[in-house]
């Protein structure tokens, strides 16, 4: 399960600590719905940033904006120093959607080959990279099976592999562990930690609060606003608790009090 070091195409990486993602007053309106409501957020290179929040809090919309799929209604979003959406940096981003978006009528290898090719990998390098990542997510034995016959966990692993096969500098993982059993969840997080050590910046959304502790920093999202942001320790200390769920409720209550007084 070895991840080879990243290749030259990503050499203009900012130093660790320099922000990779900067969101300023981001607003996104769908029809009458204000999904993101003046969101401010900075994510540094090399972080594993956790987006935590209930369903409908705007996590997926934020991910899609960072992936360049959605244009914010107002505010500015900069990723890798570029104002989004910008197709020029698409190759540096890996996006794992909430649904395990895969071609069910193709084999695992064919899926990976397709995503590799549209990210510009070719020939022997591509095949080598595919074998590497299949090994990594423990799907080597099923590589030539049609994905339609895969179990939920296998699909989720392949989906992760498809998002990371081109060695992105920024990995956007939208609820990667939904419907994944505890054992595999642990394996996923071990993998994230390793990726992170190798220099990949990870933005991961979850509503498993126990996973939040494994992030370097967390953003608590509710109604399209960031309630609080900091390391897990900071957030727990400020809320005066050692339970992430209690902490989340604490910040939500504080936000409601602010709204009432305003």
């Amino acid at each position, binding site marked *: 399960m070895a991840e080879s070091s990243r290749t030259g195409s990503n050499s203009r990486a900012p130093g660790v600590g320099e922000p990779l993602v900067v969101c300023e007053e981001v607003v996104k309106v*769908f029809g009458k719905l204000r999904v993101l409501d003046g969101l401010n957020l900075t994510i540094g290179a090399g972080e594993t940033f956790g987006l935590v929040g209930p369903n409908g809090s705007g996590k997926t919309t934020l991910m*899609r904006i960072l*992936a*360049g*799929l*959605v*244009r914010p209604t107002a505010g500015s979003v900069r990723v890798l120093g570029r104002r989004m*959406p910008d*197709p020029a940096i*698409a*190759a540096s*981003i890996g*996006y794992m*959607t*909430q*649904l395990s*978006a*895969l*071609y*069910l*009528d*193709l084999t695992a290898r*064919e899926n990976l*080959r*397709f*995503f590799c*090719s*549209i*990210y*510009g990998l*070719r020939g022997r390098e591509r095949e080598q990279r595919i074998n590497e990542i299949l090994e990594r997510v423990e799907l080597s034995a099923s590589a030539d099976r*049609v994905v339609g016959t895969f179990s939920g966990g296998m699909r989720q692993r392949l989906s992760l592999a*498809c*998002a990371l096969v081109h060695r992105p500098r920024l990995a956007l993982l939208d609820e990667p562990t939904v419907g994944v059993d505890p054992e595999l969840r642990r394996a996923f997080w071990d993998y994230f930690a390793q990726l992170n050590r190798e220099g990949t910046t990870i933005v991961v959304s979850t509503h498993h609060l126990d996973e939040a502790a494994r992030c370097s920093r967390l953003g608590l999202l509710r109604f399209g606003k960031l309630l609080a942001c900091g390391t897990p320790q900071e957030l727990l200390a400020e809320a005066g608790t050692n339970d992430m769920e209690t902490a989340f409720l604490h910040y939500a209550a504080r936000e409601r009090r602010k709204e009432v007084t305003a």
Partner: protein
Amino acid sequence: MNGARILALTTRIMQQIVRDRRTLALVFLGPLLVMSILYVVLTGSSGSVPTLALVRPTGAGSETLNTLIDRLLPPGSRLKTITILPDEVETVLNKGEADAALIFPSDLATRLARGEHPTLQLVLEGSDPSVASAMRETVTALVGQLNVALAQAQSQRGQAQGQLPPVNAPAAPLLTLATPRYLHGGPDYTFNDALAPVFIGVLSFFFVFLLTSVAFLRERSQGTIERVLASPLRRGELVMGYVCGFTLFALVQSVVVLLFVIFVLRVHYQGNLGLVFLVAILLTVSGVNMGIFLSTFAQNEFQIIQFIPLVFGLQVLLSGIFWPVAQLPSWLQPLSYLLPLTYANEALRDVMLKGSDFTQIAPQLAALLAFMLLMIGLSALTVRRQVA
């Protein structure tokens, strides 16, 4: 545009098609089955009341002959007749005012009186084989009756003049019918010869539309479109990849249908097969893009099926495949000329039945090209709309 990325998409689409065995079987065997059934059912069927143009004898003594001809013609419900001049034959037939022309020598009466055996010429328009063969039968019967009547008249006249009747009844008929001349087609043409070319176009258009719209719908419902759009793949490349994948596939299908039609059903054709494929390509690319465009208005596969009567039923009925556009009510005819299949139908029939060349079908090709560009524009717009 990046060729490698387009190729990646094309490859993926081909893989997906090949993987789906049932659809593959349907797409390749379905048309052959339909063609075979049509072949059995439609061979020799006839259409509306045919029209025969007569070039009548005009010389001295032809009044009696003309009266005789009129008396022997089948009733108006079975055959309409018009009278034309000898130099009008080709124009009248090409304009579709008549399906066949029967040419009598102008000095028929004089030549009969001289005891000659004049020859009549039948000219058939020929592009609708069922009408042509019905016409041939009708005219052969008519000439037969005419011979009997003339022979009777001659023997009566002979007796009246006190001559001995001929020892044996006339050995050779007085009038002979020369081998019919066909403006288009030939005596072996059947209804299928006229229908086959159109099918090559219609089938590839239909299947490609269906497959693309379902493939694109799945891309949306599976969520893979999000992944693809988040990648460096450009929207134009996405459309191009789909076009290449499905056009390649549709061409293979067209070749199979064409080979089946020519070698198994032994349908006749003349003209350039390259032009047939050119029409097929224009239709296919339109079909792919129409599929992408319409798939965004469908939430599931069933809603795609609902487009079929709207898109296809309408076109098959109005595009002149089963009956000429000219036979439609006049208020419906402009609609026909908005439909791509009308032009494809005209172009394919002209090439395969009349051997038309590129310049002769250029207007139809231009119309198909315009429709194709419109569809590409619409599908590119829809793909852009995926990003809010």
